[in-house]
C-alpha cells in the first residue's frame, strides 16, 4: 500500500503507522532492505504492509517481513545484560546494567590491548547488517585488523571477479534474452526484492531461463532448463564451457584482442577440460554442457547471475574466475542484456570505515587473513576469516585472539567445525555476545548484551541504490538496552575512542554521514517513504575506465596490472597462486575420494537461504516455523527407497566428521546421488512445542558434517570453506 492507504488503514484500526525498513533478512546491505508500513496499537507492534513507494520491494513484503512482530515479542528475547558467574557452559549469569556491562567490557579490552596488543581483539561479523561498517570502524580505531567476515559469502565472488575483470558485473535482468542462474537463489535471497521480481518479469517477456544447481527450488521449477550440477563442482563445469566456446571459436575476437590478457595461455590451458571430463566430475552431461556453452555464446543479450553456491568450495575462486573469463571472451561484458559494470553513485553518504588508517602494519597483524595479505585490505577493509579467528584461539598461531565480540552471529551454528568452536570458546579469555534473542553458545559468554531490533531503533539511515530512508522507531525498546550501533558507540567512548565516534552521539553521527546528500535525519524522517533516486542512463563498454581501477589493497595497485581482463592472472601468479583457473576437489567427493564411497556413497551439501528463515535465527518465530516445522533432508525417492526410508522418517546422516538426525523429505527434484538440508537448525519454538536440537552431533546443525582441514577445506585465495562432504543416510532406529 502507499502512505495514504497506510494512514487510512491505521485510522480504521485505531492504530498509528510508522514507515520504516524491514529487518527480517540478510540483505540489509546494498540492494536490499525493503520499505514497510508498520502498524502500532497502544504502543504494540501489530503488523506490516509493504511500501508501494519503495523501489526495492514496490509494496510487496515476504513471509519473514510479516512475521516481524512475533520476532520482536519473542519469548526468547534477551531481557537484561548479563555477566557470567558460573563456569563456561553452565549458563549461570547475574543481571547487570547496560552501563556496568560497558564499563566491564572496556576494562577487559583495554587490559588485553596493553598485554597482548590490539590485534588480540576480533569481531565475528554476521551477514551484512546496517551496523557492519561500525564494527570495522571500531576495530580500526582500536588498532585491530581482525574483522571476521564469514569467508563464505559475497566477498568471495567480488574478489574473484574484480581481479579478473576489474568489477563485479551484475546481470542486466531487464534486457536479457537469456539468464543463467548459477548456484544462485534469486527468490529466497530476497523474495520481494528486485532480482526476484526481475526473474518473473524475464519469464513474462519470454526470456530463456537456465538454473544450475543440485536441487530444484521454485526458481529452477520455473526455469526453462535445469542443470542438476553436483555441489562444489561448478569450476569443472565452467572450465568445460570455456573449452567449448574456445574450441568452436564462439568468441568475440575484437574484444579478446583489444581487452584481454593471456588468451593463448587460457586456450592452451582449457584443452584438457573437455565436456566428457567435466561430466564425470559435475554430473551435468557433456551434451548439456555443449548446449549451454553454445546457447550462451550465441545469445548476444545473455547474462550470468553467479550466486553463493559457488562460494563454498576449494575451487570457488577458480569457478568464479572461469565464469568471469567466459563472460569476457564471449563479448558479454558491459553490453546491453549482459553483465554490466557499476559505478559508485554520484552522491553517497560519507563512508563509515576509516580507510585512510589502513596501513601495511595493520594488515600484517591479521590473525587469519580472508584473502592473501598482499591483496588486503579488500572492499570491507582488512578481514580475517571467521573460522580462522576461532582456530587461532586453539592453535595460538600466528597468535591467539584473546577477546571476541559476536554481534548478531552464532559461531557454533554459522561456521564450520562446531566442535572446535566450542573448544575455542572454552579456552578463550573473553567472549561477548550481543543479540536480540538467546543464542546457541551464550552459555560460554562472559557478557551477554541484549540489543534492540531495528523496529525499536531510530537509526541508522538506510542508503541503497535508488533509495534513502530513515529507520524510524516502531516501538520503544522492550528492555533496559540499546541498539548494536549504540553498544559500539558507548563502548568506544568508554575506551577513549569517543573522538572517532562522534563523541558517542548517534544523532550527530547520522547527520554527519548524510552531509554529502544535503539532508539530515530530521529532514529525512519528514519523508514518509524516504527519497527515491532514479538511476542514471546506462553506460556500456566502459572498459578503459573499469580496467584501470585501483584496488583497495595497501599501495592501491590496479586490479588489472595490464589494463585488460586477466584471463591469465600475473598478480595471482606473483603471489604464488595459479595464474589460470584450475579444478580442485572438495575434501570429500565422489571423484576425489573414491575410497570413501563404500561407506559414504552420497554427497551432502546445504542450502544457504530458505523461504522460511534467515540463517540460524528465526526458528523461534511461530509464523515462520509453521511453514517449515522441522529440519528436512531433501532426498530423491529412489535413494530413499533403496534405504527403506519413507516420507517423514527420521534419518541419521553420517559423514567422516559428524552426524545429524533430520526428517526425510522425499524430493523428486534433486540429484539421486545428493542429499541436502538447510543450515542453521538448532533453536526450538516454545509456542509450537518444538525444543532446541543438539548443536553438535545428533542435532540438525549441518556445520558439524564438513571437513575443516587446513589443506583440503579451503580455497587458498578466498577462504570459501567447503560445504560438501560424503555421507551415508540410514533410517533412524531408536535403539541407536
Amino acid at each position, binding site marked *: 500500500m502507499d502512505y495514504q492507504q497506510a494512514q487510512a488503514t491505521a485510522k480504521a484500526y485505531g492504530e498509528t503507522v510508522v514507515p520504516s525498513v524491514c529487518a527480517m533478512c540478510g540483505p540489509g546491505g546494498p540492494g536490499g532492505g525493503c520499505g514497510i508500513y508498520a502498524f502500532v496499537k497502544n504502543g504494540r507492534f501489530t503488523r506490516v504492509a509493504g511500501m508501494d513507494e519503495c523501489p526495492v520491494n514496490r*509494496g510487496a513484503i*515476504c513471509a519473514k517481513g510479516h512475521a516481524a512482530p512475533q520476532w520482536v515479542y519473542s519469548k526468547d528475547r534477551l531481557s537484561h545484560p548479563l555477566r557470567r558467574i558460573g563456569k563456561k557452559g553452565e549458563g549461570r549469569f547475574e543481571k547487570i546494567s547496560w552501563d556496568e556491562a560497558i564499563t566491564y567490557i572496556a576494562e577487559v579490552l583495554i587490559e588485553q590491548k596493553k598485554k597482548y596488543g590490539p590485534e588480540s581483539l576480533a569481531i565475528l561479523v554476521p551477514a551484512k547488517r546496517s551496523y557492519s561498517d561500525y564494527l570495522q570502524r571500531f576495530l580500526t580505531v582500536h588498532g585491530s585488523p581482525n574483522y571476521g567476515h564469514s569467508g563464505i559469502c559475497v566477498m568471495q565472488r567480488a574478489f574473484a571477479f574484480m581481479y579478473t575483470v576489474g568489477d563485479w558485473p551484475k546481470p542486466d535482468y531487464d534486457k536479457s534474452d537469456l539468464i543463467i542462474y548459477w548456484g544462485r537463489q534469486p527468490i529466497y535471497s530476497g523474495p*520481494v526484492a528486485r532480482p526476484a521480481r526481475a526473474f518473473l518479469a524475464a519469464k513474462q517477456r519470454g526470456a530463456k531461463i537456465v538454473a544450475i544447481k543440485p536441487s530444484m527450488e521454485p526458481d529452477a521449477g520455473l526455469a526453462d532448463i535445469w542443470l542438476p550440477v553436483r555441489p562444489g563442482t561448478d569450476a569443472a563445469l565452467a572450465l568445460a564451457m570455456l573449452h567449448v566456446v574456445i574450441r568452436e571459436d564462439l568468441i568475440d575476437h575484437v574484444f579478446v584482442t583489444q581487452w584481454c590478457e593471456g588468451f593463448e595461455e587460457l586456450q592452451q590451458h582449457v584443452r584438457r577440460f573437455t565436456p566428457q571430463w567435466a561430466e564425470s566430475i559435475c554430473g551435468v552431461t557433456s551434451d548439456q554442457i555443449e548446449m549451454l556453452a553454445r546457447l550462451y555464446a550465441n545469445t548476444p543479450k545473455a547474462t550470468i547471475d553467479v550466486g553463493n553456491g559457488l562460494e563454498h568450495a576449494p575451487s570457488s575462486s577458480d569457478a568464479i574466475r572461469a565464469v568471469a573469463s567466459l563472460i569476457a571472451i564471449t563479448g558479454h561484458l558491459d553490453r546491453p542484456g549482459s553483465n554490466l559494470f557499476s559505478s559508485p553513485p554520484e552522491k553517497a553518504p560519507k563512508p563509515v570505515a576509516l580507510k585512510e588508517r589502513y596501513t601495511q602494519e595493520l594488515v600484517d597483524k591479521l590473525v587469519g587473513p580472508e584473502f592473501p595479505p598482499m591483496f588486503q585490505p579488500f572492499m570491507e577493509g582488512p578481514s580475517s576469516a571467521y573460522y580462522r579467528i576461532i582456530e587461532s584461539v586453539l592453535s595460538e598461531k600466528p597468535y591467539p585472539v584473546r577477546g571476541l565480540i559476536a554481534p548478531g552471529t552464532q559461531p557454533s551454528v554459522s561456521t564450520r567445525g562446531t566442535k572446535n568452536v566450542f573448544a575455542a570458546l572454552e579456552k578463550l579469555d573473553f567472549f561477548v555476545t550481543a543479540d536480540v534473542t538467546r543464542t546457541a553458545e551464550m552459555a560460554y559468554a562472559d557478557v551477554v548484551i541484549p540489543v534492540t531490533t531495528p523496529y525499536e531503533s531510530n537509526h541508522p539511515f538506510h542508503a541503497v541504490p535508488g533509495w534513502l530512508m530513515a529507520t524510524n522507531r516502531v516501538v520503544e525498546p522492550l528492555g533496559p538496552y540499546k541498539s548494536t550501533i549504540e553498544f559500539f558507540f558507548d563502548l568506544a567512548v568508554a575506551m577513549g575512542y569517543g573522538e572517532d565516534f562522534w563523541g558517542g552521539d548517534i544523532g550527530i553521527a547520522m547527520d554527519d554521514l548524510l552531509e554529502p546528500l544535503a539532508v539530515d535525519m530530521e529532514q529525512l524522517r519528514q519523508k514518509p517513504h524516504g527519497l527515491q533516486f532514479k538511476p542514471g542512463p546506462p553506460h556500456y563498454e566502459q572498459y578503459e575506465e573499469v580496467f584501470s581501477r585501483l584496488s583497495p589493497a595497501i599501495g592501491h595497485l590496479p586490479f588489472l596490472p595490464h589494463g585488460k581482463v586477466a584471463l591469465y592472472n600475473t598478480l595471482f601468479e606473483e603471489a604464488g597462486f595459479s595464474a589460470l583457473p584450475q579444478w580442485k576437489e572438495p575434501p570429500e567427493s565422489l571423484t576425489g575420494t573414491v575410497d570413501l564411497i563404500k561407506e559414504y556413497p552420497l554427497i551432502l551439501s546445504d542450502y544457504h537461504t530458505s523461504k522460511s528463515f534467515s540463517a540460524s535465527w528465526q526458528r523461534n518465530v511461530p509464523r515462520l516455523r509453521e511453514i517449515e516445522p522441522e529440519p528436512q533432508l531433501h532426498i530423491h525417492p529412489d535413494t530413499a527407497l533403496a534405504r527403506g526410508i519413507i516420507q517423514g522418517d527420521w534419518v541419521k546422516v553420517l559423514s567422516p566428521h559428524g552426524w545429524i538426525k533430520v526428517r526425510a523429505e522425499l524430493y523428486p527434484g534433486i540429484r539421486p546421488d545428493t542429499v541436502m538440508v538447510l543450515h542453521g537448525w538448532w533453536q526450538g519454538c516454545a509456542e509450537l512445542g518444538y525444543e532446541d536440537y543438539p548443536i553438535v552431533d545428533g542435532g540438525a546443525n549441518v556445520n558439524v558434517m564438513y571437513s575443516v582441514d587446513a589443506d583440503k577445506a579451503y580455497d587458498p585465495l578466498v577462504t570459501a570453506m567447503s560445504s560438501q562432504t560424503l555421507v551415508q543416510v540410514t533410517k533412524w532406529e531408536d535403539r541407536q
Partner: protein
Amino acid sequence: MSISAKEYLIVFEAEKCLQCHACETSCSSWRELSPGIRFRRVLNIWNGQYPRIKNFSLSLSCLHCVEPACAAVCPVEAITKRKQDGLVLVDQDLCIGCGACGQACEFNVPQMVETGEGEKMKKCDLCFSRRDFHDIPPCIDTCPGKALQLREVSQSEKRQVEQTIQGVLLLAKAF
C-alpha cells in the same frame, strides 16, 4: 441451496508465484490467526520425474464454490452462499463445531478454531469482514508477482477452477 447471481474468486496464477508464502503469512498476521490455523496455504507441486521434472506452486484458500460441499453437509445450516456476491460464509452463532464441513471439502479449507464458545469453523471470507484494509485483501496486496487477483467470474469459470485445483491436489497427493 440457492444459486447466487455472481461469483467472486481470488484467482491464482502459478507462473507468477515465487512460493514465498507471503500470502499465507500476511493473512495469518492480518487476520490474527492462531498457530496451526491457515486461511490460505501455499503448496509445492511436483510434475514429472528426475531429471525431466518441474515444480510449481499453488496458493489456495476458499474458492467459494458454486455448490459448496461444506454448506450441503452442515447439519445446522450455518454455512450459506450469499445471493448478491456468492460469498460462502459461516454464521458463528449457528456453528456447532462438528467438523462435517471439513470432511466434505475437497480442498481442506475449513479450519476448526477454538473460540470463547467452543470450536467454530472459520475460513477465508475474501476479507469481506475486513473491508477497511483499503479494500484489498493482504494476500493480494503483498504478493511480489501479483499472482493473486480478486475477480468476478462466471459460474462455469468457477466450476472450471474448482476442477483444475482438485486435479492439482491429486497430483500433489501422488508424491
